[in-house]
C-alpha cells in the first residue's frame, strides 16, 4: 500500500498549495485525481513519487520509507514525454534505460520495431508517450503516477494506451494514480476518485464500473 499521511506543501511566500492531504493506494488499485489547473495535482503526484519533499507529512510504502536511490518503486509519468527523455538518444536506448521490455509487451503498447533505431525527436508525442510508459514498467516498480498522460492523444490511441497499461497493471498488481481533467475517463478507469480543491482532497461520488 502506498500511503500519504497529512501532506502539506507550500511554495513560499504563497499560502500552502494543500494541507493535511491523506491518500492511500492499494496494490492493484486504480485511483483517480481531478482538479482545476493550479490546484496542485501534479505537485501531489511528484510528492508521491519522491521527486519533491513535502513541507510536512510522510509517504510510506507498506509502512516503510522508500529509498530515492536506484530504481524507484513509484514512477511518475509526466504529461510531456518530450521533457522526460534525452532528445539525442535513440529510441531503443530510452526504452531500455531501466529494463528490456519483452517483444510481446512492446507489441501490446503498439511500439513498432522500426522506431527503435530512430532518434527520439522523430517520434510524435503519442508515440513517445507509449515508450515512456513502457520504460517505467520495470520489475520492482509497484506504483505509477499517470499525470495527464493521454491528454494529447486522439481517442483511439488513448484507449489503446490505457488498455495495454490496464492489462499489465492487473497482471503485476500495480497500483495506479490517474491524474486527469477528464471526468469521464476517470470514471471509466478508477473505482475510487478524488477531487483536489481549495487545498483539500474531496472524495468524488462513488461510481461502479459498468
Amino acid at each position: 500500500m502506498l500511503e500519504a499521511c497529512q501532506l502539506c506543501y507550500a511554495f513560499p511566500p504563497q499560502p500552502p498549495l494543500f494541507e493535511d492531504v491523506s491518500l492511500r493506494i492499494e496494490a492493484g488499485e486504480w485511483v483517480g485525481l481531478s482538479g482545476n489547473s493550479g490546484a496542485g495535482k501534479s505537485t501531489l503526484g511528484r510528492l508521491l513519487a519522491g521527486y519533491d519533499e513535502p513541507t510536512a507529512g510522510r509517504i510510506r510504502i507498506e509502512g516503510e520509507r522508500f529509498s530515492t536511490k536506484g530504481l524507484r518503486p513509484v514512477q511518475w509519468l509526466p504529461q510531456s514525454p518530450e521533457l522526460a527523455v534525452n532528445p539525442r538518444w535513440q529510441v531503443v536506448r530510452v526504452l531500455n534505460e531501466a529494463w528490456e521490455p519483452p517483444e510481446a509487451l512492446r507489441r501490446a503498447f503498439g511500439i513498432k520495431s522500426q522506431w527503435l533505431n530512430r532518434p527520439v525527436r522523430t517520434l510524435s508525442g503519442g508515440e513517445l508517450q507509449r515508450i515512456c510508459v513502457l520504460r517505467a514498467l520495470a520489475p520492482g516498480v509497484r506504483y505509477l503516477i499517470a499525470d495527464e498522460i493521454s491528454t494529447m492523444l486522439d481517442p483511439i490511441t488513448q484507449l489503446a494506451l490505457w488498455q495495454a497499461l490496464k492489462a499489465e497493471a492487473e497482471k503485476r498488481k500495480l497500483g495506479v494514480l490517474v491524474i486527469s481533467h477528464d471526468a469521464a475517463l476517470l470514471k471509466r478507469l478508477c473505482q475510487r476518485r478524488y477531487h483536489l480543491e481549495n487545498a483539500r482532497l474531496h472524495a468524488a461520488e462513488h461510481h461502479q464500473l459498468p
Partner: protein
Amino acid sequence: MLRIEQLSLALPYYPRFWRRRYATHLDQLSFSVAAGSVHAVVGASGAGKSLLAHTIMGLLPKGAQLGGSCFFKETPLDEPRKRALRGRELALIPQSLSALDPLARSQHQVNWAARRAGLAPASARQTVCQALAHYQLDERARRAYPHELSGGMARRVLTAMAHVTQASLVIADEPTVGLDPAQRGRVLDALAALTRQGKAVMLISHDLRHALNIADRVTVMHEGRCVETADASAFQGTGQTLKSAYARALWQALPDNAFTIDTEYARESHFA
C-alpha cells in the same frame, strides 16, 4: 468560403545527405468550409492536420511538392495570393505558444497584428481595445509579457490577434491543448463567436469530444487522407450514420461512449 480539391503534399527528406526522397503527408484531400460555420478537422497525431493548416496559409518549407487546388471565395488560392491574404483575409492561431514574441507585451502584439492587417493607427487602437475586452484580457494581462501569461490567457491573446485581422477564415490549430475545462470553454466560445460575424473557422484538434461542442461539420483525417466529412450531428448514439469504420471507431473510443475499439475497425486495421 474555402474549397479544397484533391490536395496532396509531399515533403522532401534525406535518408543520406546526398540523396533526396519525398514522403507523402497529405493524399488527395477534398472538403469545403462554409462561411459562418465551424469546420472541425480531427485525427490522430501525425495525420497531417497541422500541415494542412500550413499548406492553406502558404507556410510550407522550400521544396514541398503540392498537388490539387484550393479556392478561397471561389478564386484559386495560389502561393502569391496566400502571401497577400495571410494576416488579412486568412488568419492562423498557431498550436505553439512560442509563436508569441517573448519580448513584447500582449497588447502590443495584438496591435501589431492589427497594423499588419492594414488598419490605420487610430482605428487599430480602437479595434485592439475592443478585442482585448472581448476576450476578457484585463489590464494586467494586457501589460504582461508572454511568460507571465497562463496557458489559457496566451491562447486568448493569440485568438485576439487573429480576431483583429478581420480575417474571414480563421484556422485554429489545437487551441485547447493543456487547458482546464473552464478555460477551454472560454476559448471555444470565442471561436464560435467569430462565426456569428459570418466568418469561417477551421478548428484543428485531436480532441473530438470538445470539438463537437462548437463544430457544424467534421472532417476526419487518418494518415494524410480525408476519411470522411460528416455533419457534427452524425456523432451521436453509436455513430451508425457515420460511413467510415475509422470515424465510428474514433467516436466509440471516447470514454463517455463505449470506450472500446470498434470491432469492424479492429478487423480492418489488424489492431492488436
